[in-house]
């Protein structure tokens, strides 16, 4: 019996710390990467490129929400607040002080992290639904504040000055969407890497532990409230990066749009549809819902706006009924199970 145990322990130690993805997944990943890299060279329709750029940006936003809600279990319903902070930071720094958006993005992420601390410290120590309610209300308040704030253009917002210098320095590309395509792809890959790294780190383990049971986490030395705030900071900073990038893409911002509750809701939908707490779920959700919204707008004209919402609603109902853990669980559960069988 003891030798059996010893043998099993030996075998367990020999297993890789992180299960290797199956060969088909690696192959699929390689093909996917090649397709994404070649896409704007092969498909020159600006609308098709635009759709991809939005998918990448929404993947970043969904991944951001995934950090606070999927990994840490804290439902934020005011995530647009961070998107808007990112947007306004590049906008204000550029229009008022002529500071390059490259610096603006970093400043926006820092400010969003600060805002996450300010909002998180009083609200994240609460158990239950208070955090969701608080973020919902704070998100709306921030929108109203910016809509009344004359210095930042109040309700009409800011128009970023068109620049004729170096496009890469100015982060403005007037003739082609291809640079935006690759930049947004890079941001999406970065966001993906953040979550990939988190899930394999002590911090990520602790967040998932407190998500599943806060008391048990505390009994194992985890400072629960502080870790939630930390997750909220990371999440907020990621969201702000997407807001900054979006602003450089459209070169205009107003409170109605960048602090919109639609943004707060859509990141929830995408993450939940794809698979909350998973690595690929948010990207999958973005890849499904963005084209749905963009193409329904084309096919159904001005009424498309409502039709995509109706499809979203039907999709959510279907997911709740048949796949409450998200579409990705169709595959992920199977992969993990295969790794689990001895």
């Amino acid at each position, binding site marked *: 019996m003891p030798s059996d145990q010893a043998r099993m*322990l030996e075998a367990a130690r020999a297993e890789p710390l992180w299960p290797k993805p199956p060969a088909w997944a690696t192959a699929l990943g390689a093909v996917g990467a090649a397709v994404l890299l070649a896409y704007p060279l092969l498909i020159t329709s600006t609308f098709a490129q635009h759709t991809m750029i939005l998918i990448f940006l929404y993947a970043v936003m969904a991944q951001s929400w995934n950090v606070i809600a999927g990994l840490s279990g804290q439902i934020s319903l005011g995530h647009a607040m961070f998107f808007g902070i990112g947007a306004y930071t590049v906008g204000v720094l550029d229009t008022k002080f002529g500071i390059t958006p490259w610096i603006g993005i970093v400043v926006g992420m820092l400010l969003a992290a600060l805002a996450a601390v300010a909002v998180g410290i009083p609200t994240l120590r609460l158990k239950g639904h208070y955090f969701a309610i608080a973020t919902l209300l704070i998100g709306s308040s921030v929108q109203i504040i910016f809509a009344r704030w004359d210095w930042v253009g109040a309700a009409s917002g800011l128009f970023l000055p068109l620049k004729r210098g170096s496009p890469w320095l100015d982060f403005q590309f007037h003739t082609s969407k291809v640079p935006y395509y690759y930049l947004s792809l890079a941001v999406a890959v970065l966001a993906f890497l953040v979550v990939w790294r988190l899930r*394999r780190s002590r911090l990520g*383990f602790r967040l*998932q*532990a407190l998500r599943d049971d806060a008391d*048990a986490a505390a009994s194992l030395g985890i400072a629960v409230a502080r870790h939630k705030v930390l997750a909220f900071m990371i999440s907020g900073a990621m969201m702000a990066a997407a807001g900054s990038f979006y602003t450089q893409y459209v070169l205009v911002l107003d409170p109605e749009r960048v602090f919109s509750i639609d943004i707060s809701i859509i990141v929830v939908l995408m993450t939940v549809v794809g698979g909350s707490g998973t690595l690929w779920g948010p990207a999958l959700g973005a890849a499904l819902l963005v084209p749905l919204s963009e193409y329904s707008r084309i096919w159904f004209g001005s009424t498309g706006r409502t039709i995509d919402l109706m499809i979203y609603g039907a999709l959510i109902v279907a997911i709740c009924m048949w796949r409450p853990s998200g579409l990705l669980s169709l595959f992920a559960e199977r992969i993990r199970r295969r790794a*689990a069988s001895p």
Partner: protein
Amino acid sequence: MSLILDVKNLTKRFGGVVANNDISFDVKAGEILGIIGPNGAGKSTLFDLITNFQTPDSGHVFFQGREITGLRPDRISKLGIARTFQKLKPFSDLTVTENVMVGALARTPHMPEARNAALEALAFVDLLEKRNHFARELSTGQRKRLELARGLAMEPRLILMDEVTGGVDQRTIPGLVELVLELKRRGTTIVTIEHNMQVMMRISDRILALYAGRRIAFGPPQEVSNDPAVVDAYLGGTPDAA
């Protein structure tokens, strides 16, 4: 032997009910202290007060000579006190190994090291073959052992175990008893809540008996089991304070 835990006059009220009424006891380093008492005697509340998951209304707790009353639960556990919960609290969406790694990560930031420590703790509680299952897939008995392994992976000086043999398959009890004794041999101090009197009498160095929130006996097993207040409490009489 030196004292590792010293509990003085802990009291906790819930409305009109006094869950713990002026409870004092101590634990010597390296011993097994058993806590007995009928349902509702205040055993689990006592664990909650020591680890500050519930704040005592009055009284003091000292761990290795240092007062820990009112410290945050995570701070207390970091000082070297692990605990299990009567109502089990697995990290359901993590695998068994990942659950235990969370415990090991309290003392090392390195993932491979935490993983190996987790596997060792799982081997110790004989749960190694379930290592890649999700915690939610385990039976109650397995979950109890998981919770034990999770706490042990922190390498605590003191572990508070809440009914490890309660509600598990009778055939696994000898194994669990052996496990607790082995833990003691390795130098871990143990405070354990049990309903099973036979087990308790065999493994405990001393026993603390509670009834209706009060301490009715405290001492070596023979002494406690012959104590009239304890006999009364278990046979259903009205206890006199010891």
